């Protein structure tokens, strides 16, 4: 679980636009529904394998064709279910979190590869928004890149909704962060500052 530091609050959580998930799941969903429909049809309609198939695979004559087809379709459904949920997990666990202290990026690249990185607000130098294409413009999603000082992992919020608004929130969070740090410094007694 992503753990927050003491007094750290989440200001914003961004995931990719919903359209990206729909696009990823469209073909899988269509195939899943087609197979379910086929199963329903098989419940009511019986069929036999054509002779040319039973000539090649004579062992098929020993099985009820309807049951065999239902069994194989249910195995295919299981595979498609797993594929769909890998896509859902990849979408859901790719997120960018802006807190009062830092920006966190977590991304599931594949089942055995993931990234978890963070950049504190005082390292952010610039934020760039990139909206390219007809669909991103119409649906208002795009990339947001955070340019950082030093050797930090490249921070790109990919295909997020309302990237311009997100940019404003990051700048506000950075301003609040600096104000808080200045207040903390003002509260430090003068002897401590001198000793340090």
């Amino acid at each position: 679980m992503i753990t927050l530091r003491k007094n750290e609050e989440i200001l914003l959580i961004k995931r990719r636009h919903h359209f990206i998930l729909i696009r990823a799941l469209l073909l899988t969903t269509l195939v899943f529904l087609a197979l379910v429909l086929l199963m329903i049809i098989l419940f009511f309609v019986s069929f036999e394998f054509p002779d040319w198939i039973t000539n090649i695979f004579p062992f098929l004559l020993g099985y009820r064709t309807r049951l065999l087809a239902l069994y194989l379709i249910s195995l295919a459904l299981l595979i498609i279910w797993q594929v769909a949920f890998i896509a859902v997990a990849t979408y859901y666990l790719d997120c960018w979190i802006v807190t009062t202290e830092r920006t966190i990026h977590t991304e599931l690249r594949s089942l055995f590869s993931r990234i978890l990185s963070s950049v504190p607000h005082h390292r952010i130098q610039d934020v760039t928004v990139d909206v390219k294409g007809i669909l991103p413009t119409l649906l208002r999603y795009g990339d947001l890149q955070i340019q950082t000082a030093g050797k930090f992992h490249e921070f790109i919020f990919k295909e997020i909704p309302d990237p311009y608004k997100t940019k404003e929130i990051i700048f506000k969070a950075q301003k609040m962060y600096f104000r808080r740090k200045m207040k903390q410094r003002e509260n430090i007694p003068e002897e401590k500052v001198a000793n340090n």
Partner: protein
Amino acid sequence: MANIILVILFGIIAAISLVIGGIIFYHFKKFNLPHDILSAKILTLFKLGSVAIIFMAFFFLILLFIL
């Protein structure tokens, strides 16, 4: 021979599904946000769907041998 192949096929696909399910659960538990209700719902849906489909496949497999 064909019966054995059908059983092995079921075993392999069910085992792979359980492994993939376990990995997905691991990622959700390890890298999710605290108090995230939606992720709990996603995991429940995934778990129930996987179990239902595995049982359905097993049911058809048993029927294939009985009938």
